[in-house]
């Protein structure tokens, strides 16, 4: 089952104006850099982007915000991006803010054929507005629905041509759930190997969830907050 494509250009074929995209990553950690560049090249507009964060001004999804390619963001935290805040407060950008755990679970639910589930997160807040409330074990919960996307775009450390993925460290984050929830899922990886080279016991995302895979190039992997102890 060979899902290998040559590069981001080939992987992103079919992404059109007005589509809903999921993009993996937490902050700038584990984001699909190559595919984001290609989205900028393609200049697709009116996108709805589901991503935990919105990048920074000049990296990650911030690049799409600069070019006003995004109509709506569905995120949990967007605090690192001035252009985002400007577009949101001015009303240019629609924003749906979701508790992080609900965002993760809603993506998983989308991929897992679970249309809705109850969670305590957000009860009694803006997030609960218009949502069904039900008590379980004496505690109020709200009903949250599944999220899916036309394309899910994820970044892994290693992958094989059958689409199996292994993530590294905390770069895993939202990538596995989003991989499950895309009608077409694109995976870009730092190292693409042949089937059989990954240990089947150590694969984080099964190839069944991935439709296209390619080995990316020139990963910058920018660090947002470089915090260190002195060498001495």
């Amino acid at each position, binding site marked *: 089952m060979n899902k290998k494509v040559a590069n981001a250009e080939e992987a992103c074929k079919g992404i059109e104006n007005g589509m809903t995209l999921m993009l993996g990553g*937490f*902050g*700038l*950690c*584990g984001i699909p850099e190559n595919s984001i560049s290609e989205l900028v090249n393609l200049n697709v507009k009116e996108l709805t982007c589901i991503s*935990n964060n919105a990048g920074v001004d000049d990296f990650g999804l911030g690049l799409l915000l600069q070019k006003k390619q995004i109509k709506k963001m569905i*995120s*949990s*935290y*967007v*605090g*690192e991006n001035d252009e985002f*805040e400007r577009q*949101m*407060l001015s009303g240019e950008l629609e*924003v749906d*803010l979701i*508790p*992080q*755990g*609900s*965002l*993760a*679970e809603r*993506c*998983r639910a989308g991929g897992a054929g679970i249309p809705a589930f109850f*969670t*305590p*997160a*957000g*009860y*009694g*807040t*803006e*997030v609960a507005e218009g949502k069904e409330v039900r008590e379980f074990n004496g505690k109020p919960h709200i009903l949250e629905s599944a999220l899916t996307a036309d394309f899910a775009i994820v970044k892994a*450390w290693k992958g094989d041509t059958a689409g199996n993925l292994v*993530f*590294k*460290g*905390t*770069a*895993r*984050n*939202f*990538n*596995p*759930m989003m991989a499950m929830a895309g009608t077409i899922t694109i995976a870009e990886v730092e190292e693409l190997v042949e089937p059989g080279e990954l240990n089947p016991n150590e694969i*984080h995302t099964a190839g069944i969830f991935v439709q296209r895979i390619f080995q990316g190039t020139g990963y910058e*992997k*920018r*660090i*947002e*907050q*470089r*915090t*260190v*102890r*002195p*060498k001495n």
Partner: protein
Amino acid sequence: MLSKTQIAQRIAQELQNGWYVNLGIGIPTLVANYIPKGIEVEFQSENGILGMGPFPIEGTEDADLINAGKQTITALPGAVYFDSATSFAMIRGQHVQLTVLGGMEVSETGDIANWKIPGKMVKGMGGAMDLVASADNIIVAMMHTNRAGESKLLKKCSLPLTGVACVKKIVTNLAVLEIVEAGFKLIERAPGVSVEEIKNATEGNLIIDGEIPEMVL
């Protein structure tokens, strides 16, 4: 009056052996520096690590290893990485025994607001709503008053809520307080701070029951 560091130091006294702990951004992060002797705890960061260690030694930082504040970190022996759904399964499923987070406002019924100032600041709730809705044990670390000198311990929050009736304890620069049925119960005073000063800085109902000891750091 406590410094931010001292607030963290006081909160660290609450740690119990064997606890899994989630520390929010800001003052809460500092708590990790003051774990009492003989107490073993493990830190969870909701972006996908359990067993978080100190910042890396200069030159060893790894872009693929960060905490929820996007800071580079290290992993201790016995650490484990996981995805965001699993991370919040830990949180929502109450496997994390203590959450420490910052607050903009706390009400006398335990409501908390810390994610949005309408029309002004909208960073998003991140994982805070999941954390406060789930944890059995939530400590808020914050200044007792805002920059304008107004109390942040209120009868009712004025800002959009993060969670309802969830805060258990508050450690401020002035005091340690518990949320009880009738309001903010004063537990300890910061060194050199009088009950009167705390009273004046607290808009919500303050319960003063007997002699209030000064905290020991």
